[in-house]
């Protein structure tokens, strides 16, 4: 990750920076571009706040005369449970894959062994594959895991019945495994910037693999974790293919629920729009509050940048 990340504080403009384009033209371009990005959002909010009978193709662009907040309540009733599923899924999968990625990155960057780079490249390939190419065996695998309830002899503990297929744990498993390449990548590149001298000094002091991780690497990792957690959370929250194939109605995440809500032809449009806002809000908030780290994860995804 040798890319220089654009920082929020712009470097002071050299006074002599005057090109052919006038300043006014520059701002005109910016406004046109901003309209392209923001008009869909205006329409999204305006439609979500209309009552069903006020939605009419001819008046699409008008701001609603009377605000109808009931759309959100109605949308929440339909997909609120799925928002909960997504939240649980995204948090658990993100934490597990971030932790594993951190350890992998540490091992790969500070304890380099012969073939470490080839191994890492082979791991990275998993980040780019179309999941369609593993979906059928994954589906079979998930369907094959499960057990009837049984008692562990001698301990008198009853293990409840479990089926992986349709449970949220199937999705967590998929997201952890296929998230490992990117989390490992980000941490490996992040730790590459930590001077080897720090690790060497600690080895001279007699510290081993784990104590170096605990005392040197982990305390330095906070920005790395922020980037990975934001990135992974967004990815898991927004994912659709696994959501559509490995779940049943009780464990469906919000992307799938939204696609069902919006897919029906008879639905009045305020409902899917309100649903879209609910589904977008968590990742959008993360982006607006922690945008800088989000961009860093984004750039890290292009391997070298």
């Amino acid at each position, binding site marked *: 990750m040798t*890319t*220089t990340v*654009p920082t*929020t504080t712009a470097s002071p*403009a050299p006074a002599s920076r005057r090109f*052919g384009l006038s300043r006014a033209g*520059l701002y005109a*371009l*910016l406004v046109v*571009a*901003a309209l392209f*990005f*923001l008009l*869909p959002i205006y329409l999204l909010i305006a439609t979500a706040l209309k009552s069903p009978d006020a939605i009419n193709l*001819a008046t*699409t662009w008008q701001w609603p005369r009377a605000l109808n907040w009931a759309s959100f309540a109605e949308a929440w009733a339909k997909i609120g449970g799925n928002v909960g599923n997504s939240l649980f899924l995204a948090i658990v999968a993100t934490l597990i894959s971030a932790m594993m990625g951190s*350890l*992998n990155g*540490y*091992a*790969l960057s*500070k304890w*380099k*062994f012969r073939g470490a*780079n080839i191994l*890492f*490249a*082979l*791991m990275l*390939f*998993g980040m*780019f594959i*179309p999941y*369609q*190419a*593993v*979906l*059928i*065996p994954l*589906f079979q695998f998930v369907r094959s895991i499960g057990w009837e309830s049984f008692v562990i002899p001698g301990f008198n503990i009853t293990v409840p019945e479990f089926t992986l297929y349709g449970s949220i744990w199937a999705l967590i498993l998929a997201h952890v495994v296929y998230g490992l*390449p990117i989390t490992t990548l980000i941490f490996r590149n992040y730790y590459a910037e930590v001077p080897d001298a720090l690790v060497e000094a600690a*080895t001279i002091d007699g510290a*081993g*693999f784990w104590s170096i991780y605990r005392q040197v690497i982990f305390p330095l990792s906070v920005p790395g974790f922020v980037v990975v957690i934001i990135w992974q959370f967004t990815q898991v929250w927004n*994912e*659709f293919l696994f959501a559509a*194939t490995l779940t049943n109605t009780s464990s469906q995440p919000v*992307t799938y629920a939204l*696609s069902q809500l919006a897919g029906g032809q008879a639905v009045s449009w305020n409902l899917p*729009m309100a649903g*879209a806002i609910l*589904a977008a809000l968590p*990742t*959008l908030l*993360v*982006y*607006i509050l922690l945008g800088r780290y989000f961009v860093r994860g984004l750039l890290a995804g*292009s*391997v*070298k940048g």
Partner: protein
Amino acid sequence: MKGLSRDRLWSIAVLLPSILLLAVFVYGFIARTVYVSLTDWGNDPAQALALDPIIRWVGLANYQELFTGFLQGRFRQELVNTIFFTLFFILGCLGLGLGLALVLDRNPRGEGLWRTIFLFPMSLSFIVTGTIWRWMLQPQGGVNQFPNAVGLPAGQFSWLSSTDAVWKFDWNALPLITASVVGLVLILLAVRAARAGDRTRAIVSGLCAALLLGWALFIGPNVRLLPAPELHGFNLALIGIIIAAVWQMSGYTMALYLAGLRGIPEELREAAKVDGASDFGMYRHVIFPLLAPITLSAMIILGHISLKIFDLVYAMTGPDNTYTSVPALNMYLTSFRQNQFALGAAIGTILLILVAFVIVPYLTSSFRGEEGHA
């Protein structure tokens, strides 16, 4: 660091779970998918979901079916859709992203805010984007009402439901077209190699080109993949989906280009100006060449995203619109709605091959370079 074998063992022990998981879930499952694609699992609906299905080895029959079978015209149109989608999606993202980055590089007031506006769609899911843009592109509303704002009659284009296509070609001509295009590219390479004085390379590419073009000239026209002509082209309904995809992803290229522009030292620009370069000349000869590696990375990342795209199409035109469908969507429907697992696995394998063409050279070159530095 000799004699630290215990720590070294720990480092391998830490990596082991991930290695095993990826070995099974990536490479093992890919192998399994390829195997399934060579069987007839699911071609007989009674066997598809049987507990102990009878599965027979059929070799490449599923692939043959996809490329030449009477029933699989949808898949062939999807392949064509993917190619056009990828082309315009990449062009759109690169163009808009570069434009925005160049504008932002001139340090307008409130730069952070502008950047936030251009990048926020990246944080949304394709399902959300698709839902919003489906509403934007309704035939009588949304975008089609823009001309009203300046007093013109509303647009008539039926964005997502259009069934018109342009640039149609007969699927039978595909080997011919492929051979000709590859042949021409090889000629170009040969000429370039000859100019650079690389004789072996020039001769090899030249011979390959001659072979391909000769085939295209004498044998190609008689090759028939299908019994009857089958026309495929660029379906206009894809335009709306491409716009939505560019809306979502162009912020990414903007961020990449902006990072690249910020990395160009000010002295270089000053030096170009001192040498009397015009603004245009400076961009043409100094800045754009420096951005070329970024363009390549962006093309690879966007290219593999666009080959895999599935949720955006699903959200915008639903699963059953064959005019906008893509192989990734077809794979999902074939496997999980029709339970034709073998055919679905074949589509998945084809997708993987397409993506691998883009990604493997990229990973190889990334790591060969790095190995050299280490």
